[in-house]
């Protein structure tokens, strides 16, 4: 029986339990003068019985599906011959996958010796037992739940309390998922990073100026130095983010000021959603745009300037060279992407500045732009700074644009016309495709992930602090 069918059966069973509960409660109510003499409405008795049937069975199915692999694995491991137990974890994994294949009947059956037959048989028998036992157990649990629920239906028993208590527990469990996923993130990147730092010293990672994650398989292999200095990636990330912010902050801020201070309601109603479109475009689209339209355009312009410089004998321009994957292209497009982000955040803080401040300024005879520059802007500055920090964290964590347009070469340069690489690009390139979980190359991605997580988290916490502090001034 497949999992979906089992789930449907369990749901149907719970539905039947609900109906049964309803009938039973009405049956009980009849001799004592109707539903009004029950402690709860029939639907609560029914719900309670349905939940009694559903929840334990569902819990069993979930736990079984999550843990059966691990339990079967450890049982089979116990069946392995003595010499297999002394193998290293890598080789053991290989043997186990061979056993799995043999049990599933994939591949040649005789790659493993006779001494492994016990393990193979054990695995296939355990697998078939597990597949058969789970639905049967789940249905038994369902029926037992039904019976218990049925017995609890009494006129004096207030079923509503039970239902509401379960409801409350479900709410708390759902709310905790946010906590679990934070912990999941922290632990997953932390554990793998610790493994990484056992192989590569922490100081080399943080202060090294050379990034080339290819590890030599042979000693004489060319271009495989395996050094993990994160500085070039940080410089590349900061360079691109800086370009993005140079575009996005003035444009976003000025649009927000114009829209909230000057524009009529009708203009605002049209222009604001039009600008918000930029925020809704997927990043992969921006990446495509950057790689296929903006980068070639920048290269062409650069070539044009170089030729012009060469003709007119201007040495600096004649030496100009633009890489086909430049930090500039990625930065500009990323800047365009975060314009609406900056503008909507600034809009919020500008609108939060009390009108009395503006009126005071007008009363003293200043023009509208003077009011904005000298009164509204300073008053809104902390909020705007917070917004810019949030935009910076967005730019640092942005992945697809840089993956598609910024390149892979870890150049340590601040020249925006050269190709640079970023933290996110390296995470993606190191992890895409099949990989083992114990090479320094793969683990490096998790160390970079930890780094990225810490930086963006810090930026966000600072930004939220700044914004919050500012807001309290006027409320």
């Amino acid at each position, binding site marked *: 029986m497949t999992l979906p069918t089992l789930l449907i059966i369990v749901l149907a069973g719970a539905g039947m339990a609900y109906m049964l509960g309803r009938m039973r409660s009405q049956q009980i109510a009849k001799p004592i003068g109707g539903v009004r003499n029950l402690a709860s409405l029939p639907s609560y008795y029914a719900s309670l019985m349905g939940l009694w049937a559903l929840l334990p069975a569902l819990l069993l199915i979930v736990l079984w599906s999550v843990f059966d692999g691990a339990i079967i694995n450890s049982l089979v491991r116990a069946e392995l011959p003595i010499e297999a137990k002394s193998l290293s974890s890598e080789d053991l994994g290989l043997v186990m996958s061979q056993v799995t294949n043999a049990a599933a009947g994939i591949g040649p059956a005789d790659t493993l010796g006779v001494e492994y037959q016990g393990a193979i048989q054990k695995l296939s028998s355990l697998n078939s037992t597990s597949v058969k036992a789970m639905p049967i157990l789940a249905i038994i649990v369902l029926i037992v739940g039904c019976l218990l629920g049925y017995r609890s239906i009494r006129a004096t028993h207030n079923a509503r309390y039970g239902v509401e208590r379960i*409801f409350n527990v479900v709410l708390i469990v759902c709310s905790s998922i946010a906590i679990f996923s934070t912990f999941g993130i922290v632990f997953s990147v932390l554990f793998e990073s610790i493994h990484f730092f056992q192989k590569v010293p922490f100081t080399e990672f943080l202060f090294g100026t050379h990034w080339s994650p290819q590890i030599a398989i042979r000693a004489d292999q060319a271009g495989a130095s395996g050094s993990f200095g994160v500085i070039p990636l940080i410089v590349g990330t900061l360079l691109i983010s800086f370009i993005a912010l140079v575009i996005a902050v003035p444009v976003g801020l000025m649009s927000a000021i114009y829209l909230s201070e000057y524009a009529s309601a009708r203009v605002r109603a049209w222009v604001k959603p039009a600008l918000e479109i930029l925020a*809704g475009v997927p990043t992969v689209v921006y*990446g495509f745009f950057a790689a296929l339209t903006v980068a070639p355009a920048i290269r062409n312009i650069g070539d044009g300037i170089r030729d012009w410089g060469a003709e007119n004998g201007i040495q600096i321009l004649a030496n100009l060279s633009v890489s086909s994957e430049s930090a500039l292209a990625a930065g500009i497009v990323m800047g365009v992407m975060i314009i609406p982000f900056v503008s909507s955040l600034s809009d919020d803080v500008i609108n939060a500045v009390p009108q009395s401040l503006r009126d005071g300024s007008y009363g003293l005879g200043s023009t509208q732009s003077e009011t904005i520059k000298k009164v509204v802007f300073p008053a809104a500055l902390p909020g705007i700074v917070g917004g810019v920090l949030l935009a910076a964290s967005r730019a640092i964590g942005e992945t697809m644009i840089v993956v598609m347009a910024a390149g892979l070469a870890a150049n340590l340069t601040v020249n925006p016309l050269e190709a640079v690489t970023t933290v996110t690009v390296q995470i993606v390139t190191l992890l895409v495709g099949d990989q083992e979980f114990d090479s320094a190359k793969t683990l490096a991605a998790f160390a970079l992930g930890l780094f990225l997580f810490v930086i963006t988290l810090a930026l966000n916490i600072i930004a939220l602090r700044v914004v919050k502090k500012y807001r309290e001034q006027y409320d």
Partner: protein
Amino acid sequence: MIDQEIVAQKRAAQLAKRHRAESRFKWFGRLSIGFGLLCVLFLFTDIISKGIGAFTQTYINIEIPFDEEKLGLTPQSTEAEIKAASFGSFFKKTLREQNPEVTGRKDKRSLYALFTSDAPLILRDMVLADPSIIGTTQTVSMIADDDFDTYYKHSYGRDLPEDKVIGRINDFQVSMLNKFVDAGVVEKRFNTIFFSNADSREPELAGIKGAIMGSILTLFVTLILSFPIAVATAIYLEEFAPKNKFTDFIEVNINNLAAVPSVIFGLLGLAVFINFFGMPRSVPLVGGFVLTLMTLPTIIISSRAAIKAVPPSIRDAALGMGASKVQTVLHHVLPLAMPGMLTGTIIGMAQALGETAPLLMIGMVAFIVDTPASITDSATVLPVQIFLWSDSPERAFVEKTSAAIMVLLGFLIFMNSMAVWLRKRLERRW
């Protein structure tokens, strides 16, 4: 007297300067907005002008005599016999016979290359579908090769300078094209292949059906998980949660998760779901899990706003009538907040639909030729398909990529306008 005049003049000059500064400032604002709007316009026209061509496909109508001898088949042949027949050499032979002027080895190869490399398979499938056509002559609309297709759509019959011609096609092939056009057998039709095929190495056979199915399955998982969880969390935090350290901690976590870069969620998916729980790679199930964690904060935040917008008087009235807290929430607050929650959910789903980076991490970048049918089949999603195609060297894939982007943007515009409509239509203001 004179002093006053000078002062007045100075004042006027200063005022004029201030007014100039005022209008300059206003122009900065207008320019910024103009820049933003121009970017929107430029982005869309660029994508559309690049991608519009992919919605048509060039076909070449050729007469194929399904000769019994040449194929070694009869209308009574079994399926296995048909599958074993050599349609490849049959197709090439037919082409050579129909174009006897083509002699050189290189030219012959160029001739074959005008047609999709799947041409023999298409012929075989025709025969498999209806074996009675063996022995008859059929007009077959054969899909043209991508280079030929690109050339015909974008460069043919236009006096373009050498470097503007797109579509790798040699002089011999141009002469063949002229011959076909004169014979009236070349035609452009709406590209149904693009919507009915999954991915392929051959641009002319590549379609987005697989990616769209993958996106639908992934979003299905995301929706089923994230909507109930987010609504439950929002209800708990707004209506039930006591003000204590635990609930504060939940709030802090939700706000932080909203700001975590999406690629980190991919790392989480890889380390926890795939490595720790041993779930399979590149399946919509895991993709849905990862996107659920990613979209939860968005939906929770908007659901909380929707619950907050329900006036307290509604709750007081329900409680006053003797309803319990749970009854108040389920029967009164939740239905009133539902439109706002749905709006937030649609926006969250739109976000999830456009997300690429975390799905790359969990292996949804594999080259998959089959359309996924369930949440545990290997699949890719639309944005990842765009990413994969944008990496391909063939010119024709640029067109396909842009077309896929147009489809993706179409979905997103639809979802977002639905959210706006829902907000305008159903949301009540008190």
